[in-house]
C-alpha cells in the first residue's frame, strides 16, 4: 500500500513540478535578443556556414524562414546522437549516449506496456514482445551508461573537479533503478507485468518480489526528484535553444513587441549604483531616456 501511495505521489509531483517549472519560465518577461550562430533556419547553403538573414541588404524587406524543419532536424541529432558531446567531448560520449538511450528505451517500453495494459492486449503480441525485449535492453544500456559515467566522473581529469555529490547521487540513483529493473525480470513479471498490475490491480503489488518493489520505489523517487534537477534539460532545451539561442526573430516583424516592451519599461529600477537612478527609484523608461553620464560613485 505504501508503495502505491509513493508511486501516486511521485507521479503527481512529477507532473506538477514540471508544469510549475514550465509555467515559471513561460511567464518570465520577454528578454532581449541573445542569439548564437549557426542557427538552423534559412536556405540550406547558408545554414551550412552559419549565415543569417543579416547577410542580405535591406533584410527587413525580405521574407525569412521561420519554419521549424531545420531546428527539428538539428534537435533530432542532438537528442538521438548527442551531437554536441560527440563533437566536444568524445571520451564522454559513449557513456552518456548509453545512459540516454537507456532512458529513452525505458520510457518507450513503459509507454508500450501501458498501452498493452490499457488495451488488454493479450492478442497484441507485438506489444508484449516489444516490452519483453525492450525492458532488459533499456536497463542494460542504462546500467552501462550510469556505471561508465560514474567511473568517468571520478577519474577523468576534465570532470573530477566538477563531480559533485549530487552528480554522484543522480548517477547512483539511475544506476540502481536500472540494476533493479534488470534484476526484477527474474524476480517478477518484468516491466509489462508491473505496469499491468499497477494499472489493473495495484493491491496485488505485494505479491511481487522485493527487487521489483525496490525498482518501483526507485523509479517513483526519481520521478518526484526529477523536476528539481538540471535533468529537466530534457525539455528545457526548448527554451535554451529555440527560445534564446535560435531566437533571431526581429522586432520589426513582431506586432506584439511594442506592447511587451511597454510593459517592461514600466517596471521599477532599484539598482543602487549612482549612475543608474541617482534620484531614487525610477522606471526603466526614465532610466533609458535619461541622458546619463552623471553620477560619480564608482567604488
Amino acid at each position, binding site marked *: 500500500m505504501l508503495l502505491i501511495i509513493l508511486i501516486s505521489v511521485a507521479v503527481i509531483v512529477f507532473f506538477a513540478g514540471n508544469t510549475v517549472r514550465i509555467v515559471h*519560465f513561460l511567464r*518570465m*518577461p520577454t*528578454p*532581449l*535578443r*541573445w*542569439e*548564437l*550562430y549557426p542557427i538552423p533556419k534559412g536556405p540550406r547553403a547558408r545554414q551550412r556556414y*552559419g549565415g*543569417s*538573414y*543579416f*547577410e542580405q*541588404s535591406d*533584410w*527587413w524587406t525580405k521574407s525569412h524562414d521561420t519554419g521549424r524543419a531545420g531546428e527539428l532536424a538539428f534537435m533530432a541529432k542532438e537528442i538521438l546522437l548527442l*551531437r*554536441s*558531446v560527440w*563533437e*566536444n567531448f568524445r571520451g564522454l560520449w559513449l557513456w552518456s549516449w548509453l545512459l540516454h538511450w537507456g532512458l529513452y528505451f525505458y520510457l518507450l517500453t513503459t509507454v508500450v506496456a501501458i498501452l498493452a495494459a490499457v488495451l488488454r492486449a493479450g492478442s497484441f503480441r507485438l506489444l508484449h514482445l516489444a516490452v519483453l525485449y525492450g525492458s532488459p535492453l533499456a536497463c542494460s544500456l542504462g546500467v552501462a551508461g550510469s556505471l561508465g559515467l560514474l567511473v568517468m566522473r571520478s577519474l577523468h581529469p576534465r*570532470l*573530477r*573537479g*566538477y563531480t*559533485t*555529490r*549530487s*552528480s554522484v547521487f543522480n548517477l547512483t540513483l539511475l544506476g540502481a533503478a536500472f540494476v533493479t529493473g534488470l534484476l526484477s525480470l527474474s524476480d517478477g513479471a518484468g516491466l509489462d507485468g508491473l505496469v499491468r498490475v499497477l494499472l489493473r490491480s495495484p493491491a496485488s503489488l505485494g505479491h511481487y518480489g522485493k527487487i521489483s518493489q525496490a525498482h518501483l520505489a526507485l523509479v517513483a523517487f526519481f520521478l518526484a526528484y526529477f523536476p528539481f534537477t*538540471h535533468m*529537466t*534539460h530534457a525539455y*528545457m*532545451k526548448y527554451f*535554451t535553444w529555440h527560445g*534564446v*539561442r535560435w531566437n533571431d526573430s*526581429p*522586432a520589426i516583424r513582431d506586432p506584439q513587441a*511594442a506592447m511587451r*516592451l*511597454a510593459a*517592461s519599461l514600466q517596471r521599477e*529600477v*532599484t*539598482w*543602487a*549604483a549612482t*549612475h*543608474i537612478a541617482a534620484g531614487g527609484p525610477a522606471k*526603466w523608461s526614465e*532610466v533609458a*531616456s*535619461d541622458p*546619463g*553620464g552623471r553620477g560619480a560613485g*564608482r*567604488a
Partner: protein
Amino acid sequence: MRKIGDIASRTGQLTQVHNLAPLPPPYDRVEDLPARKKLKQEVLDRIDTSLDGFSALGLSRPQTPEEERKFIARFLSGLEKLLSADNNWAFLEPLNLSLDHCARCQSCVEACPIYTASGHDEVYRPTFRNEVFRRLVNQYHKSGGRALAWLKGEDIELNAATLCRLLESAYRCTLCRRCAQACPMGVDNALLTREIRKLFSMEMGIAPKEIHDKGSMLQLRTGSSTGMNARAVRDNVAFLDEEIRDQTGLTIETPWDKEGADVLLIHNAGEILAWPENPMAFAIILEAAGISWTMSSDLAGYDSVNYGLWYDDAQFARVAVRQAEAARKLKVKKIVLGECGHGHKASMVTADRLLCGDLNVPRESALVLLRDIVISGRLTLDPSRNDFPVTLHDPCNMVRMMGIVEPQREILRKICPQFREMTPHGVDNYCCGGGSGFALMSGYNFADWRFSVAGRMKLKQILNAFADCPSPAVKKYVCAPCSNCKGQFRDLFQYYGVWEKSGILYGGLAELIVNAMADIRQPFIKWEFH
C-alpha cells in the same frame, strides 16, 4: 588542481600564468618578449591581485570587518535584483536557464581560447567562475539554500576574497561565446559572466574605468567614448576630407545631418582618430558608388560603440536609444554600421526589442553594403593591386553572434588573389583577445595578461595562416573589419614584434577595396605599422 571552493581562500593567489600554450618560432622565445610589468609594492598593497596576479579593475579589498560586511551585503542585494523581473527583465530568462541547467559535463571547456591558451589553467575554465556564481546563487538566494549547499558539499564561504576573485575572473573572459556553441544544454557561460559584471556595475558601481568612466559615461556626456563632441568630430572628419584630396585627388565633402538620406553611416568614432584611413575609405567608396549618405552630429549619433553591451544594461539602453533617435530625427532609410563588431551586435541584435515603433529604424551591416557595391560592378577594381597574402579575422559579434559570414568573404575573394582562411574560421573563429572591452583595457598589469593569454590563440592562428610566407620581406595583411579587434591587433602585434618579425599588418576591409580601385592613383594602403 584548484577546487571551486578555493575561490574563498582568504590568503594567497589562486593561480599563476606560466604554462602557456606554445607559439610557433620565433615567437617561442620568451626572452624576446617585453618584461612583464611589475606592480609597485604600494600598488600591490592597495589592489586585489589574488586571482592570478593581474588586475583588470584595480579593485581594493575591504580593509575592516565592517567594510567587508557592507561589501558582502551590497553583493547580496545586487544578487536579489539580478534575479528579479523588475530589475533584470531584459536577461532574467536566459540567466535562469543557464543557472539551472548546467550538467557539469565540461563539453564546453576545450572550446575556450583563454583556457587552452593558458595551458588548461583551472581558474580560466569557462565553468569555473560560473560554477562559483551558480553555487552562490543556490546558497545565498534560494530558500533553504544554505542547508542544501552544505548537504551537497557545494557551500562556498562568501567573503571579500570570494567576491574580488569572482569579479576579476569575470574580466578573464572575452564573452566570445565559443563555449556556448559547444554546450549541449544551451547553457551560456558568457551570458553568466556578463551578468556577474552587471551585478557589480549596476548595484555596486564597480566596472573597469576604461569602459565605464572613460567609455559609456563619456559617450553619454560628450557624444563619443573618444571624448569628441559634435564640433570636434566634424572638424576631424573635415580634416580627413582634405586628406583624401591630398592622397587621391578626389574632392569629397562628408555630408553631415542630411535629412532624408538613404544611409546614416555610424562609425566607431575611434576609427576617426586611430585609423582614419577607414572612414576615408568609406567616404571614397560611398561617393564613388553614388550612395545617398550622411553622418549625424547628434549625441552618440556619430559613434556606434555601446560598451554597456559588456557590463551594464542601463548604459546599454541609454546609448542604443540615443543612436536610434539620431537616425529617426534625420528620417534616413537605414542606419549602416561601420566596421565595429560590438556596435553591430548592440544596435542590430541586442537593442532590437528595445526600439519600437519609429525608433526601430532598420539597421544594416556595412559589410553587406560594401559587398553589394563591390559585386554590382559600380567600382572599377583591379585585384592585382591587392596581390599580397591576406587573411580574414571574423569579429565574434558580427559572425558568431549575427551570422554575417559571407559578405566580407565575397569581397575578399573578388579583390584579393592571395586570400586565405584561418583555421578555424567563420562562426567557429577565435576571438582576437580584445573582446568585451579588453582591447581598451591596459590598466595596472592587465595588458600583459591580454597579450600573453587572451590574444594567444589568435596570434597562433594568424601566424599559421601565413606559414607559407613567414619572411618579414613578404608583406601580409590581416583584414579585421572591427575597430576593437584592430585595437587588440595593434597592441598584440606590437608586444610580440609581429610587424618586424613577420611583416604582418592589420587593417579594415574598406581600405582593401579602395586599394583595389583602379582610378585611385597611388596605393591606398601604406605599409606602415600604426
